[in-house]
């Protein structure tokens, strides 16, 4: 992004920040700038669902459709009722019971020819050139039937669906999923919410940098006031990790058991080892320049690097499906290698990566770098790491440490030329002037210190009496300012999330309606084509005269939008 572009965005976002409530209207009605320029698509909430009368008796089910797992459950519950993998064994013909056959279960599953690692275990992939959507529909339909008939077992009352999807899912794929949910499961309406937003909700935040380390890719999404403002992705994620683990396991088996033709580590085995005993090393000492998490770091964190343990710790992994069944003892340190190679690629120089294969910490850094300065301040202190891979012990700490180091060495100058002192001074000066100009633009509007780049971490120095004059819980409701903890910015900080499904459950529990709500009848008539074409409303001047949120007459209630998926 060009410098001028950044300024403009920063200004438009900044304005909204400086009011009391950042409202959609502030963002959507800025005529000179598209509201979410970095994302290239806007989420026009103004023209969201027609908002038919909200009835409290409406009941929801909450479904998250990932590329490897399907989660389904009910609003207000902390965990889904079921988490189902797209296992090829579930995709056999009815009446095919071979998975229960002991002989069959003893053997390693071999991958199908021409398929990528783990492809049989996917429901979909974003690249539709390799996807037969009719098979996706078949798989999804069968799985949803299991969800409804085995785990939901509802009465016949129709349930609305809150559907959590990754942002930017291709339309044909979305149609396929919606066809099934509307067609086979009779949903009266489906509310779509994007998983980064939901991860943000499930972290208790409104803005965050959501790092979703999923199966096919890692998606970094900057969420600002519940809106996606930027996203970046890399292929460094679950699939690569799983392939790396298979390599490690193959090597160990060949070394200890000898080579057996056609008896490589299966996908399931690699996945199981990953999920059970894989881990991620803390940041290598050689690259450390400062102490990270000075207050919280426990001394053990560095032990793996520093102390050579004798005897070397090992893990013994059983391979009951190998022929013959065997056990392999692997050094504990080896189990950290896949993460190293797949996610951080520490051996390779940064210049050798394409944009879509950046190591995680560089991806996150770049995402932050391309954000307007005030949004960056907020997001960098709200780094929310989620996705299936993120559960690996040590991974979150490592990512945050690597990021911290990058920020320390590179700062936020996109040109990266301030090895010299003068450049650094220039940077400080530029930030100051930026801030001053923002303030000028705001006129009388008071600038909350927290969001002022000149005045970081105000918590300790804020005048306390503003909101401490009244004690008790009641005070919460009436005080003017937010507590200082919610204003932290400018430092690298990780915040935990309960994940997209839990976020969706919270949203549905509070009965908050989403931006994208699709009515069954309308969908069955027109499909996704029925979505309003006016989604880029923020750049259409004529809307201004009508005021935000107002659209034509009552007849227009019918329109709906695809929001971030438009």
């Amino acid at each position, binding site marked *: 992004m060009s410098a001028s572009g950044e300024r403009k965005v920063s200004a438009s976002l900044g304005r909204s920040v400086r009011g009391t409530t950042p409202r959609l209207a502030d963002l959507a009605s800025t005529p000179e700038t598209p509201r979410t320029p970095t994302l290239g698509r806007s989420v026009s909430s103004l023209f969201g669902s027609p908002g038919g009368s909200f009835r409290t008796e409406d009941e929801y089910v909450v479904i998250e459709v990932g590329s490897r797992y399907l989660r389904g459950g009910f609003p207000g519950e902390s965990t889904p009722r079921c988490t189902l993998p797209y296992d090829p064994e579930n995709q056999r013909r009815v009446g095919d019971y071979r998975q229960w056959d002991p002989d069959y279960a003893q053997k390693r599953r071999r991958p199908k020819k021409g398929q990528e690692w783990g492809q049989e275990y996917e429901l979909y992939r974003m690249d539709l050139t390799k996807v037969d959507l009719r098979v996706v529909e078949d798989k999804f339909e069968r799985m949803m039937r299991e969800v409804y*008939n085995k785990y939901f077992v509802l009465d016949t009352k129709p349930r609305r669906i809150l559907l959590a999807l990754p942002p930017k899912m291709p339309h044909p794929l979305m149609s396929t999923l919606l066809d099934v949910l509307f067609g086979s499961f009779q949903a009266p309406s489906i509310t779509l919410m994007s998983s980064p937003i939901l991860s943000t909700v499930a972290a208790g935040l409104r803005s965050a940098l959501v790092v979703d380390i999923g199966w096919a890719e890692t998606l970094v999404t900057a969420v600002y006031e519940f809106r996606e403002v930027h996203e970046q992705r890399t292929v460094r994620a679950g699939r690569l990790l799983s392939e790396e683990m298979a390599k490690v396991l193959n090597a160990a088996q060949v070394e200890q058991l000898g080579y057996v033709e056609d008896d490589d580590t299966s996908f399931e085995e690699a996945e199981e080892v990953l999920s059970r005993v894989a881990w991620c090393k803390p940041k290598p000492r050689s690259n450390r320049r400062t102490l990270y998490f000075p207050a919280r770091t426990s001394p053990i964190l560095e032990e793996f690097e520093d102390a050579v343990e004798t005897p070397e710790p090992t893990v013994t992994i059983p391979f009951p499906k190998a022929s013959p069944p065997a056990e392999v003892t692997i050094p504990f340190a080896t189990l950290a290698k896949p993460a190293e190679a797949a996610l951080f690629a520490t051996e390779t120089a940064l210049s050798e990566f394409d944009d879509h294969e950046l190591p995680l910490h560089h991806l996150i850094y770049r995402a932050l770098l391309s954000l307007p300065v005030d949004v960056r301040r907020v997001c960098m202190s709200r780094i929310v790491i989620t996705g299936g891979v993120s559960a690996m012990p040590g991974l979150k700490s490592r990512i945050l440490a690597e990021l911290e180091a990058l920020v320390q060495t590179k700062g936020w100058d996109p040109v990266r030329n301030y090895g010299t002192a003068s450049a650094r001074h220039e940077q400080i000066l530029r930030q100051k002037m930026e801030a001053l100009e923002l303030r000028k633009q705001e006129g009388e509007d008071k600038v909350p210190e927290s969001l002022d780049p000149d005045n970081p971490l105000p918590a300790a120095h804020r005048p306390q009496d503003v909101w401490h004059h009244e004690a008790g819980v009641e005070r919460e409701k009436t005080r003017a300012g937010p507590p200082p903890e919610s204003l932290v910015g400018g430092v690298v900080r990780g915040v935990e999330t309960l994940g997209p499904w839990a976020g969706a459950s919270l949203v549905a529990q509070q009965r908050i309606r989403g931006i994208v709500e699709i009515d069954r009848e309308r969908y069955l008539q027109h499909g996704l084509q029925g979505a309003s074409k006016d989604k880029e409303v923020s750049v259409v001047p004529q809307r201004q005269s009508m005021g935000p949120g*107002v659209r034509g007459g009552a007849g227009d209630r019918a329109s709906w939008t695809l929001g971030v998926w438009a």
Partner: protein
Amino acid sequence: MAQAFPYTYYACNCFDSNTSGKRAAAVLQEAADEDEGTFDPRSPRANYQLYPLEHLLYCEDCQQIRCPRCQIEETLNWYCPSCLFEVPSSVVKSDGNRCNRSCFSCPLCTSPMQTFSLDPTGESGPPFILECQYCRWSTVEIGIEFEKGQGISAQLARIGNGGKPLPSHKERDKERERRKELEARKRDGRELFSPSTETTHTDKDEGPPSHDDLFASLSAFYKSQVESQTSASPFSSHDINFSSPSAYSRIMNLYSTSGPKKKQRPKPTAMREAASALEGLTLHDPSADTAAIERLKRDGWASTISPAQKRAQPNPSVRFTSDLRPLATLLCTKRSKRCRSCRQILTKPEAKITSTRYKIKLLALNHIPRLSIRALASDTPVPGSSRPPAKVFDYNALKPGIPTHFLFHMSNPLFDPIKVTLATPSTTPGKVQSRVTILCPQFDVGANTDIWDDALNMPAKRGSLLSDQAPQIEAGKIWDRGRNWTSVAVEIVPGFLDESARVEAETPGRGGPLEEDDDVLEIPVFVRIEYEADTGADERGLVDSKGGKGEKEKREEAFWTVVGVGRIKGS
């Protein structure tokens, strides 16, 4: 093993006429584009289209096979498959769709668990434990014992692993409020005067908040935000209907109904993010990572649980065996099934849990002729000869390149005679190409007439009507025929497994190295039946089989089947 050879699968037509109308045209077009329109049993879709006949229902109104996909299911009642206790629908959801008595399955191996008394006096008194009948895992391993042998579910809900009590939702909420107040006082500098100082100790003992704690805190936080929002603008309270979407959505900023009107309202207080652990905010703590790594290093593979075990857990983010919880048994349901297109009831079980009977059950096998295949062993004993009877035909070792004769056997459940036309591709799809010739693809099958008719008109045994002639393998002639069945001969030349490589060279993508089930010989057979049924008469043809009383109506049905002949032997 998939199914024992030989077998027949039936394809439901609903895959051609897709559920949602707008896509049907596209699907039909695609079907037409496919070469010859032959059903490929190896296509990935086939697994979802093919069913054994016994699994299919039949809609009499639509005159169509109905597979699970073109049915709608309705739950009639809920029960625990283990204790057979019927669960009222009102508590099904709140109990998580699981048995709320004492039925559990093992978190390691999913076998049923039993309640045992550990009473040292042998009096079957407390303490009680749950133990797996198969792998012997028990709640002792997670430090849980029960005081009573009944109502395990309710007791377990109050005990955390290691035996510490779990708070109920209400207690959790209360405790959170208490701590919030305490925190607020602390911030106000009143801490010193507060009499309740004992809490700081218990806080530390409890460790990091659990997933459920966090969720409850977040939930309470968002709720309080919603409430503070409404109370903060008392002057416009008439504007904000508490249950209206605008209140909530504006608060969350996820969906805006803001209009010009809004400008006149007092500005509501800003929503904010969670600011403390009590509000559900959890900062990343590297020491948790470190502890998990240490534990992996120390306790190794055996201390961890498998992905499948994880997914079955109430909280699927657990990692170690010490986190396991016994799994309450999932409830089962009795369901009725309706036709998706006309809503006619297809099956309805009796309501009683212990009954396995149905009030209504429209099975496809009562409406659709059954096609089966069996080998016509070449050494059929000639009557009167002294040769030993044929040895059992080995369907798992078909001989490649050797023409082998089989019989297609078609039996008719209908009360009208049917005209059958069978069609197969001359070579089977797939990497191994076998040649198939049906010697007599068009034939009639007699009606499923009353057994008394059979007894009166036919020879006493339920057998061949052609008994006076020796069966012939001859093009255009049926092999044999009975009251409501006809069989025709098929000649099959199983393909060579090792030919696959040559095929690959000719048609890239078709051959190549063999994979699972590539050696299975399956023949797609298109079946078309025509018959005349009485109009107005009972669909089931309970009318006099001679018919002629009502007017006749021509009917036709057509569907794909897949006949699994056997497995080809490698050479």
